């Protein structure tokens, strides 16, 4: 019998860690991984609240979130690959085309 609030607290911690990773890392691939961590933190919150509410609807939402994350990963990694082909770099600070 674990309190559901523990899971909720863990999801908050994971979300904040994802944000830290997104700010601190400088290559696009690891920044993208940090975004995935944030998505998973949201999933954990959904499932914890589904358990607290006693309804499986939250789990269905998580199913959709995982599907969308898979599609997002495919397109995002394709874009990163394109950027690497053009710039020969995946550092975030090299993407300054729109900076003028």
């Amino acid at each position, binding site marked *: 019998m674990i309190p559901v609030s523990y899971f909720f607290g863990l999801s908050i911690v994971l979300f904040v860690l994802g944000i*830290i990773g997104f700010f601190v890392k400088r290559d696009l691939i690891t920044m993208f991984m940090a975004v995935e961590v944030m998505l998973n933190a949201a999933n954990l919150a959904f499932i914890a609240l589904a358990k607290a509410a006693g309804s*499986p609807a939250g789990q269905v939402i998580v199913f959709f979130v995982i599907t969308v994350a898979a*599609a997002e990963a495919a397109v995002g990694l394709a874009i990163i690959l394109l950027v690497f082909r053009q710039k020969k770099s995946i550092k975030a600070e090299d993407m300054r085309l729109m900076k003028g």
Partner: protein
Amino acid sequence: MGIFLFFLLAILCVGGVLGMILSRNQAHSALFLVLAFASLGGLFGLLDAPFIAAVQILIYAGAIMVLFIFVIMMVNLEQGIAPEKKRWTLGLSAGLAVFLLGELAMAVRGTLGALGRTGGQSIGSPTELGRLLFTDYLYPFEITSVLIIAALVGAIVLVKKKEKE
């Protein structure tokens, strides 16, 4: 027993994410993330969601991370990217993160006590989930297939090399 399992998985998960952030090598980052996602699957299992736990491990820790590793292999930087030279951005991001953590904790403080405990009636059996997916959530389910086709075609068109080049 359950509480011990929770703390073991939680520490593995947070440790995996921290390892991902601190590791200099991208491939190591990806492997740390696999660890974090796998232990998150275990946490989903503790929360009475066996189907989502299996999907998490198969799709996230399996398929998506393999995609990441493939891209890391294709990009193949000889040396890792050096950490940020400017210290103030690190301090600023740490400060912002602590601020956000406090803000989120304040936001959920009132609800945490009302959440109850795990155990009791089982809610997330695959049968029940499948029934919901094909009745109440039928339209989102079908739209998801369109989304996946679009992502698939988009990814292929994006990385395809032009024939003239």
